[in-house]
């Protein structure tokens, strides 16, 4: 799956989406987009793959603080010497 999946029809839809000329309100725009995704097999597949990727990104989260930042913040919060 690649950039080619954003085919001509979807690109045209994107143009309408970006210039906002097709919808009178955000509510209508959200509906147009949702309908397009539901009806377009290309977009549906791409959306599902993106959801899977983001889900994996979330599940493999391992946040950490850089040491220099931790020391600086500790010094700031506790009034201690960071050296």
């Amino acid at each position, binding site marked *: 799956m690649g950039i080619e999946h954003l085919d001509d029809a979807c690109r045209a839809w994107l143009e309408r989406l970006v210039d906002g000329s097709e919808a009178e309100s955000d509510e209508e725009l959200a509906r147009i987009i949702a309908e397009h995704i539901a009806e377009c097999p290309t977009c549906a597949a791409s959306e599902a793959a993106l959801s899977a990727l983001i889900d994996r990104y979330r599940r493999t989260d391992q946040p950490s603080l850089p040491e220099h930042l931790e020391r600086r913040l500790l010094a700031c919060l*506790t009034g201690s010497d960071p050296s």
Partner: protein
Amino acid sequence: MVKPWEIDLTVYEDEQALLEGLRRREPVACTCLLKRFGPRMYQLAIRLMGDPDEAEGVLQEALIQACRRIEDFEGRSGLGTWLHRIVTNTALMRLRRRKPVTVDLHEQLQKRAAVPPALVDATTEPSAEVMGAELRAMIDRALADLPDTLRTAFVLREIEGLSTREAAAELGISESALKVRVHRARLALRAALAPYLDDAGADGKEAT
């Protein structure tokens, strides 16, 4: 003398004890707060700001604010949720002060299309860990490259898991506007991450 970063983090048995320590302005409590929530809040700040350096400033400001305003914490949510809100608000305030940048989404998509998928070699099977790091870096970059309005909407709704109502309230926009921003962010991310989407939907799911 024991440095703050060397203290025993089990000094507070639970969140309530930590909270009481914070209210008594105990330096050890501040240290525990940072150790316990700092990494997660830093990551949130990076994602919202799209820039690690700016995220450092956000985290510092948010933590100082949290410690000063600890009396305001009413305990209706967890301490982590309260901190999450402070970090988010601090980040959004900073983003609003940024000089607005006009981003041409079409141009962005075309630029992405011209970039070869250099980080993935389909002829080899790199370890799950390496693949995870590569993918993570690509996603971090793709998120950072989104316009602020789209990135904040996507991060709050799709990564942080806020409901549409909660994310819209944080951003001060309607739920419909939030949905539109998330859709637009997803479209840009589909283009930016296109070379990686197959792996994400298939065997890459179990990678750590």
